[in-house]
């Protein structure tokens, strides 16, 4: 199976572990990810604050490239996904794009990474690759804000209780916990500008995961990952309570279940080291 990939800026920097695990599990599953040629930044959360036209045009440029290829477009970042979907709606309404001449037919779907794996690759193919079922792991899935909101843009079927990542991890054998914070905001947008607010919001999510009986959190976005993983030491000091919850890219858990040899390299890039938990559960 071949699809287009819009990686987004973080995949080559901050989220290298996500990038490497996506490449590894795709290979195992026989999925050829074709990175869009000469893609550029989607504008993320900064463009729409500054100018609506800029926000649409920066994202639309990439859809123009995907349109030429004509294959479905997979997006492994919540913010990128929402910005590309916003531009898609704009283009489908036939509205002009400022500063860019673009030909757009739109005969392809834009999909978040977990939905693509669940709906297009499918349960059977996933199960076939499982060498090490994750039965002893109890993750909660954190989707963040922008893969689901607002549904008029994202076309999320279940914006208050998405299921894609839950389904994928269940097919690996994991005992996925239910919780009500799947799509609550971590304040990632404010991580650099109001770290106090961001940490408060992240703490709520960590607390709720613990309350749900989870031993780790799975995410499908570089920003969600960094926002929950990188500040646990600071949050602990602030809260007077120790936080040490491993945050996995869900593709890392896939790699773990598929017995990929590179798993420990990916996990070595985290701030909260997930390896002690996995050793304790005899998964590595």
């Amino acid at each position, binding site marked *: 199976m071949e699809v287009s990939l819009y990686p987004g800026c973080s995949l080559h920097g901050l989220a290298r572990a996500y990038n490497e695990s996506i490449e590894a599990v795709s290979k195992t599953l026989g999925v050829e990810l074709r990175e869009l040629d000469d893609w550029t930044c989607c504008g993320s959360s900064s*463009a729409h*604050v500054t100018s609506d036209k800029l926000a649409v045009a920066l994202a639309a440029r990439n859809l123009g490239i995907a349109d030429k290829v004509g294959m479905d477009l997979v997006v492994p970042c919540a913010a990128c996904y929402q910005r590309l979907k916003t531009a898609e709606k704009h283009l489908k309404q036939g509205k002009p794009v400022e500063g*860019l001449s673009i030909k757009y037919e739109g005969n392809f779907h834009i999909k978040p990474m977990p939905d693509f794996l669940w709906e297009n690759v499918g349960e059977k193919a996933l199960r076939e690759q499982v060498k090490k079922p994750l039965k002893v792991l109890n993750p909660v899935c954190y989707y963040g804000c922008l893969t689901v909101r607002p549904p008029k843009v994202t076309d999320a079927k279940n914006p208050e209780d998405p299921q894609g990542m839950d389904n994928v991890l269940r097919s690996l054998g994991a005992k996925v916990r239910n919780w009500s914070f799947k799509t609550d905001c971590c304040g990632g947008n404010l991580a650099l*500008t109001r770290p106090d607010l961001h940490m408060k919001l992240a703490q709520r999510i960590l607390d709720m995961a613990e309350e749900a009986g989870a031993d780790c959190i799975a995410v499908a976005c570089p920003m969600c990952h960094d926002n929950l993983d990188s500040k646990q030491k600071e949050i602990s000091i602030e809260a007077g309570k120790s936080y040490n919850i491993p945050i996995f890219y869900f593709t890392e858990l896939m790699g773990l279940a598929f017995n990929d040899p590179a798993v420990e390299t990916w996990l070595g*890039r985290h701030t909260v080291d997930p390896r002690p938990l996995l050793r304790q559960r005899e998964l590595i």
Partner: protein
Amino acid sequence: MANQKTEEYPVIGLQGASCTGRSVSVLNSSFRKQVEEKSGEKVSACYQCEKCTNGCPVEFAMDIVPHKLIYCVQLGLRDEVLNSDTIWVCASCETCTTRCPNGIDIAHIMDSLRQISQSEGIKASQEQVPIFHNAFLSSVRRFGRVHEGEMAAIYTLRSSGLKGLMGMAGMGLDMFKKGKVKILPHRPNKQVKDIFRAAERKG
């Protein structure tokens, strides 16, 4: 504003917000119209159900909570709105937009208010927020893609000076060791530069 017919009304339902406790001049709809035009959203459709505020993750840090902010726009309380913390601490999480029973895209209105406030040269109550977005976008403009390390360094330098930048160095080294820092930025992209120029011309 001055030549408009105004009448004094007590602001019912605004107790507790910074734009409360005083009578306001209503029948000043020019600000509401400006916001509606810029955002394409129907501010006047809001009937103050408070659903937006109830789902907002940062309402505790706002001086005017979302439904009251919308009310302030309806009433034409321009200065209160454009100087508020609210428009800069809103995390753009889109929960309000998703839940509004009247289909008002409140998060988009927040964007429009930020844009109006910036274009009118109003000093942002949270100065560092527009500094961050500008640092981000200038990285995109120059390299086509964001270089996280460079962007964070420019933001820190502009918002907290050299001292702040030095304080960041330790964290940067840590991330470098974990392989989270890309060494070189991407190459400039002409189309991206054109997009920025067009947006500058047309706002």
